[in-house]
């Protein structure tokens, strides 16, 4: 007798990312799953056209929070195989060109980077702990 | 014969797709066959008692025997591409003459008895019981299809309404509802050897007369032998060639070509008919019985090759089915295809330069060519696809100076039927025949006006008979239709032979 398997929201969050230690995404994960592309797209236009640099839906912020880290604490490109963005997109056959331009790990100077710096300073989450 | 009054359609400069006129041709159906014609073909004499069950059973039988039927009844998506392709629809405006609607007459019965959807939701899928009305529709409209296959060319799945109307006719025959014209003729072949019921002696007479005529005309002794054993070639030709105009002029041409080729040949009085009406009624058995006569004649006469005269349906059966029905032909000369078309034969001679043709003999004519539907869409000549279009044209071009094709949409594989094919060449269907000829008449009329065409050549006995009858309805002349080999006959410059003076001694080796 087949049973209904439990469906976990949040299963794609990389254990070694900061997100693993936070309770919630910027919106409920269910909503994020469906609408994250529109959120960041909207943010994109707001930022580029109107100079709004709020971090809530900013791509750099997604990356900061969702990048996984190696055991040594070095960040792993977020679009690398099996990493957060890629895990879903490979399964959903989505090809992004965002990372043609956008840094896949927090890098560089500036206020965005300061955010990243702080994230980097976090102790890497040990593998498997979830 | 109850003559129906009808208006001959008007010829337009451009073909027009008519608006529907419901049941415009519901009254048209051919005479029913009498029991005495049914019997010899193996069909019940009249409508059997439990005809519905029998018809359905027969349908089931055919569905198991013919993939075409099976697939075609399933596959049609009602796309409508075929709707404006049938000359009978164009001429009569009756929606049931649209090929798909014609198929639907059977399809709705098929759905009712053979498909799940039709059994469960007949209304939804347009399924219907086989009632008397349906049967009468069948009889009427399956005898308004000349099995010309024009619809099949344009159907995305190649659905061939001819296959379906053949099946319908077979089913009807099997319950005792036969068509007089076809069945009577088939019976005649069984009895006498040809459609026209010309007995052997009559044929011999005719041929001797021809030999004299030709001699008088040309001063050259051209032979038209019959039942001569041990010759190379058996020529099988539609019996109309033996006496009807313009057919016989073609036959004279065959003889002249053979004469020039220097080959020995003969007719057979046993197989003195090329046409095979078994196809029209969709009866494999009868088609096979008719074909076997040719095999028997070929064996009896000991010929090496078989050549067919100008006849469309005959050529279809010969080209595509003869090997199946009466083969294998391993006792014939393997260097030649079995059978060959007389046009293939003539064309080869022309290419080899063996015929001396004086084109100016046909200078009184400006020609066009009517691709007969069964030659164009159901057979081939030569060794490449489409040879059936090029070879007759090449012959015409070689024999006359003025040739123009009709509108591209109305020739080659898109050619329009003459309107009399498929066993409909009977006076009781005159209205249908006249109206069905409309598209061809229009195209002809256009080249006549624009290119000054005077004559139309054809290579089919039915076409020739039909046009002779129908042309006058459209204000044209019946002798505007000519045989291709009539042109050859006119143009050919005969080589006198030693035996020209010597009537009886034909010493062939």
């Amino acid at each position, binding site marked *: 007798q087949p049973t209904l398997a439990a469906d976990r929201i949040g299963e794609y969050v990389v254990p070694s990312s900061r997100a693993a230690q936070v309770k919630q995404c910027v919106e409920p994960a269910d909503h994020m799953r469906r609408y994250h592309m529109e959120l960041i797209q909207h943010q994109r236009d*707001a930022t580029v056209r*109107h*100079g709004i640099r*709020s971090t809530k839906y900013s791509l*750099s912020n997604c990356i900061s929070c969702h990048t996984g880290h190696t055991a040594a604490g070095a960040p792993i490109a977020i679009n690398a195989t099996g990493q957060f963005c890629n895990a879903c997109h490979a399964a959903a056959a989505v090809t992004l060109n965002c990372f043609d331009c956008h840094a896949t790990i927090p890098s560089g*100077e500036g206020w*965005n980077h300061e955010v990243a710096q702080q994230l980097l300073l976090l102790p890497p989450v040990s593998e498997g702990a979830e | 014969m109850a003559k129906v009054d009808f208006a001959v359609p008007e010829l337009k400069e451009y073909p027009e797709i008519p608006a529907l006129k419901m049941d415009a041709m519901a009254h048209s159906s051919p005479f029913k066959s009498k029991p005495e014609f049914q019997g010899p073909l193996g069909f019940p004499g009249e409508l059997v008692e439990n005809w519905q069950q029998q018809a359905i059973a027969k349908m089931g039988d055919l569905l198991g025997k013919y993939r075409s039927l099976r697939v075609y009844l399933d596959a049609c998506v009602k796309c409508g591409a075929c709707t404006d392709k049938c000359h009978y629809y164009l001429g009569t405006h009756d929606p049931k003459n649209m090929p798909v609607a014609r198929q639907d007459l059977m399809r709705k019965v098929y759905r009712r008895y053979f498909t799940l959807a039709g059994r469960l939701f007949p209304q939804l899928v347009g399924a219907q019981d086989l009632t008397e009305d349906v049967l009468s529709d069948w009889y009427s409209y399956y005898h308004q299809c000349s099995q010309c296959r024009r619809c099949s060319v344009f159907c995305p799945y190649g659905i061939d309404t001819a296959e379906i109307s053949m099946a319908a006719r077979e089913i009807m025959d099997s319950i005792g509802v036969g068509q007089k014209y076809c069945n009577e003729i088939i019976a005649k072949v069984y009895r006498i050897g040809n459609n026209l019921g010309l007995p052997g002696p009559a044929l011999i007479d005719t041929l001797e007369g021809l030999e004299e005529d030709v001699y008088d005309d040309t001063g050259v002794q051209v032979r038209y032998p019959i039942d001569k054993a041990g010759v190379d070639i058996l020529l099988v030709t539609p019996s109309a060639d033996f006496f009807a105009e313009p057919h016989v002029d073609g036959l004279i041409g065959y003889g002249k070509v053979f004469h020039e080729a220097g080959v020995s040949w003969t007719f057979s009085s046993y197989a003195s008919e090329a046409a095979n009406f078994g196809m029209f009624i969709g009866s494999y058995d009868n088609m096979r019985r008719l074909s076997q006569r040719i095999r028997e004649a070929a064996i009896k006469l000991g010929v090496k090759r078989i050549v067919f005269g100008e006849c469309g349906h005959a050529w279809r059966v010969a080209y595509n089915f003869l090997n199946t029905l009466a083969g294998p032909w391993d006792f014939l000369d393997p260097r030649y295809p079995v059978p060959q078309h007389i046009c293939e034969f003539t064309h080869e001679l022309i290419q080899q330069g063996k015929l001396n043709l004086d084109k100016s003999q046909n200078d009184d004519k400006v020609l066009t060519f009517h691709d007969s539907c069964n030659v164009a869409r159901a057979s081939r000549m030569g060794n490449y696809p489409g040879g059936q279009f090029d070879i007759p044209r090449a012959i015409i071009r070689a024999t006359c100076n003025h040739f123009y094709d009709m509108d591209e949409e109305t020739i080659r594989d898109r050619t329009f039927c003459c309107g009399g094919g498929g066993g409909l060449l009977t006076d009781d269907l005159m209205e249908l025949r006249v109206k069905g000829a409309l598209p061809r008449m229009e195209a002809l009329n256009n080249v006549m006006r624009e290119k000054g065409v005077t004559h139309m050549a054809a290579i089919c006995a039915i076409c020739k008979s039909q046009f002779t009858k129908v042309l006058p309805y459209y204000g044209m002349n019946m002798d505007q239709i000519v045989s291709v080999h009539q042109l050859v006959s006119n143009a050919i410059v005969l080589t006198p032979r030693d035996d020209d003076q010597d009537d009886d001694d034909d010493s062939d080796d």
Partner: protein
Amino acid sequence: MTYASHSHSSPDAIDTPDSIDAVDTDRRQFLHYAAAGVATVALGGGAVLTTLTATAEPRTTPVTSTHRWGMLIDTTKCAAGCDACVTACERENGLNLQQSPTDDAADWADQQSAWIRKVTLRDNLTGQVTQLPLMCQHCAEPPCVDVCPTGASFKRADGIVMVDRHTCIGCRYCMMACPYQARSFVHQPVAQKLTQVPRGKGCVESCNLCVSRRDDDRQTSTACADACAASGQGAIVFGDLNDPNSPLHQALAQVNSRQIRQELNLNTGVRYAGL
């Protein structure tokens, strides 16, 4: 939006040795201005629960035409052999991370991105040599924006002309149109980039007046201006053209400045003195 060219001070003033002091003054004024700016901007946007920046917030409201960012470049101060501004721009925007895909140095020189160029001129009559940095002039009537088919080239409300590289299709028509050859096309895939300055193959880019600094009120200058000042030349003054109290405005008041290709009437945001 128009404003008069300022030509109060005499051209000679530019060559005075105390120009260094002038820069210092400028700097002080800059700092002053910056402090005021920070003070006046509301620190909104507390909604973000993951906010890690404890102090000042980057901008959360759309830019307006209250400001119009611009620069004054005093060519007389621009030193021969110096390219500090170019280097700074490259560092700021990750252009120094570009790697030549080709061995042909001349080709690469033509193809690599340059948001700011060091230009040297010689007067045809006098033979006098002039140095100046040339970047996007942030035209008020930018031809590049007019021609861009998708509207990817656009002018922000605060006067910054830039490329929205999400809608740029790489047709390069803007490059054809720009009278200053200020734009670059990214000819090769970009391997390394900065979070703050995304850039990649197939799009057009140009100086954007260090736009992410503009949206962060803690920042009051551009990388090139900072570098020039730091190098001691102080040839570049950055500021708000709309603000009569801004150091830029005051600097413009002091020197005789003009636009390059003034005849085109593009009303550039970058002005040159000593040209």
